[in-house]
């Protein structure tokens, strides 16, 4: 298959290898070294997309990240990537791309009818209409707008590829591997610095890739870098943001140049780079000129046309006009002539210059003092209209299929701006360049207005050397720099050519010069307002080539210099970055780590249904074949505890060793109740408040030695409690000699609960007299369990005679099995979190739903625990009137009057005649095994006074109203006879 516009030789193209690809279903060929854009141009494809609002035909405008037009949907199926710039896609065999944002075919997009309505679709038109009738916005107007807006289509399917994060540290980070960046990296590397050279392109070299004569220097530079072990060159890596403290973010496209990522490799890798010094050598983006019809396919930035010819060996047109305001763009005409194109004319608003003379000598028709005032054609450029600068009328017509445009260069100051550096106006370059650095960064080459390869390389070498020195390295030896004549890039100030037809300042979002003037007329004269009002420079290209042009049009309307108008502030990202790359590998199942107890495999073998408790996995219940449903399992497990004995993994509770001469004093200040009076070998229930008087956490804390305490916390608050203890030791009571160690992971713990718990425990625990007298409720002692060292606690959450046994986690399975064996004769059953919840609700023990950060000790019926004397956290602020207000909801028990009526946590409590006013809510609900029916705990206003009365549990979300009786929260064994048995 032919590539009619491919040059026979030249460029960084491997003509020996052919790569097949399709665009809009048509098959083409290209070569390694091509981008999708260069391959399309080689095949003569000019029309590649439709614009955002007016659906105007658009072609390839640039050769890089600044591309506003040539956005395609790349790949198919789950790998479809909308809005991908054809100018940066490396061609691979089998590539599939489609044009986007069209209805019908690309050539006949019927949405282009929007262009006819253009007079009524100017900037911000939607703010002024679509308001009547009011109901029509969501039903009619908005869906219409939404369908019309947007660019490409997402696949809607899960992305099959992997991504990963990576971290780097260096002395000098060089961003951009053009002449300046290569020289900077080489200079810094030669000084001995650890250097990272990041380049967004697959090939390092920047503009050097368009200069065959300098290929030797480019290769020599890369070879030199390759020989330096502390220099890392990262191609295909876009540095997207410059953050505080010398940290930059970058995305490396590891596999995007391949049909799909090879096994074990990610698609992309997101780097966090910490650099002591940064050299920004990010180059410049060529600037468009606003003139009528400046968006026609065939209108292209001059440097892009030169690049396609020189780097890709592609002739972007046969008959070319150059419209330039500075000498720097003229090389494009020479490159196109070399490539075999006819140079129809060179249009330049200036009267004379060195480049103009050279062009005349080359035989080109140079139209000095002229401007392009229009284009002819529809889906492809057919001609160009040229007139004297500022003249009226349509001018002279030239037949041409390529119009190369250059209004100057916009230094790529994005990263410098993000680093905090101000932007300063350079009147000669008519551009903003970076001002004094705020962070440890410096710019080199075209991104600070130093144009020409030789000058940029010298600037880069100096910057690299200075950066290395600033990072503490001695001056490096010098090396050969490229020599090349430089053209003058200072442009003539021609931003806009006024005339009939749309002159775009933002090609992607269809923002015209007239829109900018309209914004000014309506008072949106500040660049930030104008940007938001018109959407200027808010497309995927972020106004890289047209942003300043819009500002200049606004400046003219305001009658002020461009420097006063300025640019909107630059924010990350320098170029759009893949969501997956930013997310990294920790997504989906690995979004957060899964924390497992030492008994995880045991529960799995028992067929546990899992539930998430924070990041822990805990067994919810253990279904059996004979269980009709989940409730059958839960009730069976709970009944086993109430009637016989159950076994439960309670390893997830937080455990903290608190030790030291001042440990008792410390705990007295941390807990709302007293601990210093607790004897060794005893446990006590403890209540912690936050400083604001709200309950923070509870748990059982044991004194295991005169100065040694074993604090337990709830599963959810283990981390926050540890931090709370550490903070107060550090900030409030640094004089206390207390050591803290988290031992949550060291100890696994098993609860054995039920009337037969003592017999079961006796069956595998040695070294303790388990009699009620010797080891009463709340006793603690070290022991041996199934031959391993363990610690036994006589504590109960279920309300039954119960023990908790803690053992070094590696023995947990061994001890569990021993307990199961010992319990077999007693009908022991494992019980999960659901049964545990049921049991504690029956008993009236509060847990997470009651300790929700909004309740006081009094609210929960625990007010009497608060000690009267001595300082403790939360003591003072708990006394505020709002927290002691007797009208606050209090903890109550609730029982459905009709036992068959289900109640749900989250229902609100209403008085039978309360006119729907919420008097409280149900915090926890369950079915009961003690007295069949549904019960719950709740917080109810005047709860104590309403004991025995009826309330309505209202759940309008579920359409339920259930009559409930208010009862004591201690529904099971309120005298605590069973736990003390």
């Amino acid at each position, binding site marked *: 298959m032919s590539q009619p516009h491919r040059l026979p030789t030249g460029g960084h193209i491997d003509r020996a290898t052919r790569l097949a690809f399709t665009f809009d279903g048509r098959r083409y060929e290209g070569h390694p070294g091509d981008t999708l854009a260069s391959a399309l141009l080689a095949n003569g494809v000019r029309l590649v997309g439709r614009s955002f609002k007016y659906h105007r035909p658009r072609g390839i405008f640039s050769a890089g990240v600044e591309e506003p037009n040539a956005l395609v949907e790349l790949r198919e199926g789950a790998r479809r990537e*909308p809005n991908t710039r054809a100018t940066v896609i490396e061609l691979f065999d089998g590539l599939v791309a489609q044009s986007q944002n069209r209805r019908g075919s690309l050539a006949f997009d019927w949405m282009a009818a929007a262009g006819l309505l253009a007079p009524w679709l100017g900037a911000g038109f939607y703010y002024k209409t679509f308001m009547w009738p009011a109901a029509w916005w969501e039903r009619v107007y908005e869906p219409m707008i939404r369908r019309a807006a947007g660019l490409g289509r997402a696949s809607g399917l899960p992305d099959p590829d992997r991504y990963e994060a990576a971290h780097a540290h260096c002395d000098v980070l060089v961003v951009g591997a053009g002449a300046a960046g290569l020289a900077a990296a080489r200079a810094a590397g030669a000084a001995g610095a650890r250097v990272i050279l990041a380049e967004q392109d697959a090939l390092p070299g920047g503009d050097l890739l368009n200069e065959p004569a300098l290929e030797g220097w480019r290769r020599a530079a890369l070879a030199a870098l390759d020989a330096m072990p502390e220099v890392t060159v990262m191609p295909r890596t876009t540095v997207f943001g410059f953050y505080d403290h010398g940290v930059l973010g970058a995305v490396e496209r590891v596999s995007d140049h391949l049909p799909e990522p090879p096994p074990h490799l990610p698609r992309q890798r997101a780097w966090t780079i910490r650099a002591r010094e940064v050299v920004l050598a990010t180059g410049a983006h060529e600037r468009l000129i606003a003139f009528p019809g400046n968006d026609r396919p065939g209108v292209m930035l001059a440097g892009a046309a030169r690049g396609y010819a020189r780097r890709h060996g592609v002739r972007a047109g046969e008959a070319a006009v150059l419209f330039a305001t500075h000498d720097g763009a003229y090389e494009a005409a020479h490159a196109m002539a070399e490539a075999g194109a006819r140079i129809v004319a060179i249009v330049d608003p200036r009267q004379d210059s060195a480049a103009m003379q050279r062009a005349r000598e080359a035989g080109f028709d140079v139209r000095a003092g002229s401007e392009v005032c229009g284009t002819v054609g529809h889906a492809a450029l057919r001609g160009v209209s040229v007139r004297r600068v500022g003249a009226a009328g349509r001018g002279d017509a030239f037949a041409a299929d390529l119009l190369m445009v250059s209004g100057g260069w916009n230094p790529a100051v994005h990263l410098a701006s993000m680093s905090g550096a101000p932007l300063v106006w350079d009147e000669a370059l008519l551009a903003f360049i970076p001002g004094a650095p705020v962070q440890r960064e410096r710019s080199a080459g075209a991104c600070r207005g130093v144009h020409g390869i030789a000058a940029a390389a010298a600037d880069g070498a100096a910057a690299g050397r200075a950066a290395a020195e600033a990072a503490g390295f001695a001056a490096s030896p010098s090396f050969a720099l490229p020599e090349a004549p430089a053209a003058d890039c200072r442009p003539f100030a021609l931003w806009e050519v006024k005339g009939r037809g749309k002159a775009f300042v933002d090609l992607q979002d269809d923002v015209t010069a007239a829109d900018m003037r309209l914004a000014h007329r309506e008072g949106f004269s500040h660049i930030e307002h104008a940007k938001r009002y018109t959407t200027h420079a808010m497309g995927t290209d972020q106004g890289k080539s047209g942003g300043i042009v819009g500002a200049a049009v606004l400046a003219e309307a305001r009658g002020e210099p461009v420097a006063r108008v300025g640019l909107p502030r630059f924010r990350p990202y320098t170029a759009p970055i893949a969501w*997956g790359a930013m997310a990294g590998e920790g997504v989906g199942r690995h979004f957060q780590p899964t924390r497992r107890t030492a008994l995880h495999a045991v529960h799995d073998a028992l067929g546990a249904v899992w539930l998430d408790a924070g990041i822990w996995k805990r067994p919810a219940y253990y279904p059996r074949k004979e269980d009709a449903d989940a409730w059958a399992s839960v009730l069976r497990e709970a009944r086993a505890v109430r009637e016989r004995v159950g076994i439960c993994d309670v390893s997830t509770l937080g455990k903290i060793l608190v030790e030291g001469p001042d440990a008792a004093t410390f705990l007295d200040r941390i807990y709302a109740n007293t601990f210093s009076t607790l004897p060794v070998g005893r446990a006590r229930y403890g209540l912690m408040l936050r400083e604001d008087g709200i309950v923070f956490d509870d748990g059982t804390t044991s004194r295991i030695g005169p100065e040694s305490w074993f604090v337990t916390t709830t599963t959810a608050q283990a981390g926050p409690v540890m931090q709370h203890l550490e903070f107060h030791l550090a900030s409030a009571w640094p004089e206390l000699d207390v050591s803290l160690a988290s031992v949550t992971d060291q100890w696994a713990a098993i609860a054995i609960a039920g009337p037969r718990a003592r017999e079961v425990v006796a069956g595998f625990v040695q070294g303790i007299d388990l009699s009620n007298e010797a080891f009463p409720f709340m006793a603690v002692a070290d022991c041996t369990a199934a031959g391993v060292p363990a610690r036994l606690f006589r504590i109960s959450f279920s309300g039954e005679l119960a023990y908790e046994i803690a053992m070094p986690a590696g023995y947990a399975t061994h001890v569990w099995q021993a307990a199961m064996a010992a319990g077999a004769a007693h009908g022991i059953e494992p019980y999960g979190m659901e049964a545990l919840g049921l049991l504690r609700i029956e008993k009236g023990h509060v847990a997470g739903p009651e300790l929700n950060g909004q309740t006081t000790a009094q609210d929960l019926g625990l007010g009497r625990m608060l000690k009267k004397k001595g300082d403790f956290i939360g003591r003072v602020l708990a006394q505020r009137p709002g927290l002691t207000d007797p009208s606050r909801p209090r903890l109550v028990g609730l029982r459905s009057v009709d036992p068959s009526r289900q109640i749900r946590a*989250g229902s609100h409590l209403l008085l039978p005649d309360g006119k729907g006013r919420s008097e409280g809510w149900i915090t926890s609900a369950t079915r009961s095994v003690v007295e069949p029916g549904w019960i719950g705990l709740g917080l109810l206003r005047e709860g104590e006074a309403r004991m025995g009365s009826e309330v309505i549990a209202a759940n309008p979300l579920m359409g339920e109203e259930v009559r409930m009786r208010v009862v004591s929260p201690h529904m099971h064994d309120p005298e605590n006879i069973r736990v003390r048995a």
Partner: protein
Amino acid sequence: MAGYSGFRILLEGLRGNSGWREAWRKPDPKPSYDVIIVGGGGHGLATAFYLAEVHGIRNVAVLERGLIGQGNTGRNTTIVRSNYLLPENNNFYEHSLKLWERLEQSLGYNVMMSQRGVLNLFHNDAQRNAAMRRGNSMRLNGIDAEILDREGVKAMCPLVDLDNGRYPVMGGLLQRRGGTARHDAVAWGFAHAADARGVDIIEHCEVTGMILEGGAIQGVRTTRGEIRAPKVGLAVAGHTSTLTAMAGFRVPIETHLLQAFVSEGLKPLIDCVVTFGAGHFYISQSDKGGLVFGGGLDGYPSYGQRGTLPEAEHVYAAGVSMIPALGRLRGLRSWAGVMDMTPDGSPYICRTPVRGLYMTAGWCYGGFKATPASGWCHAWTIAKDEPHSLNAAFTLDRFREGRMLDERGNGPHFWAQ
């Protein structure tokens, strides 16, 4: 100034759109006003609008140090909802939502209020119970709320991954009347309508001091001279502490960063606002096609308006964990707003220790949806010198009294609200 209408658009289109005039005037400040509002964001402009519209107080100046709408009004994720738990917040935000529902007609400006539904996912029993308590509280207060099961979630937002994530989705709490609005247009619309009622909107006028006499405010000093008024209202999200320091008192506020993000433009993909219950993440799609998304605070005080990488990574990871199809899309831009965080996550609309000085502040990251009601209640409080019942609880001294409005039970940690 003539209002906006389809007819005018038609007419102007025919004559080259040459007849449009400034959406609001650019007056010089007068020496004195009846009321000065400091802050030209949504809340300040709304205050001025309702002072004029509801209370007939039109001799009002809005002083803005930069451009109107460039603070948090223009830096948020545009979500509007009233799905709160506590009755005080519930009633206030519902009032706000009702104002939103007729805002376009009140202002004569299309703020593109889109009631596409706000869906909060839950992933376990505890979250479901909390959602149930909240949703029932809403329903009992006359606010729409629905509980969705997994099928309901799938129907509402088919891209949500119900099962493969770390935390499978159990269901969601949906407020259908919630949605989004075009954030910039809110500021411009209030400005346009306030201006039409005689309010002076004065941009590039920074307040540098307060004129206090005998414990009462008499006006402000600005970069454009002294401007006097017997009543001054502060609506300066992110800068309240700086302004109250000028007035000689400190407030329970810490200023934190919140990042937000937008993707490249896409054809319609997500039709409601969805929030992830297993990580801090929320997302919606703008009418222009960009996915607008965000997460939690960056975690430390800042007035810097620029975000940090680790929190951004967390937001992106949560997003792709909830909706795996997002992986191949691209983030386009990120930005950060400065949030006046309060110790309980609820705001202040109240009088201050200085007589004649009022404030609407402490919006944490819920300020955008509050815009109309904040202005409405602030205007009421200024006009009557006492709060409306809707904002009576939003006082500065509620912490002294122990009457916190802590929706989430996070406690007095500004950075955790």
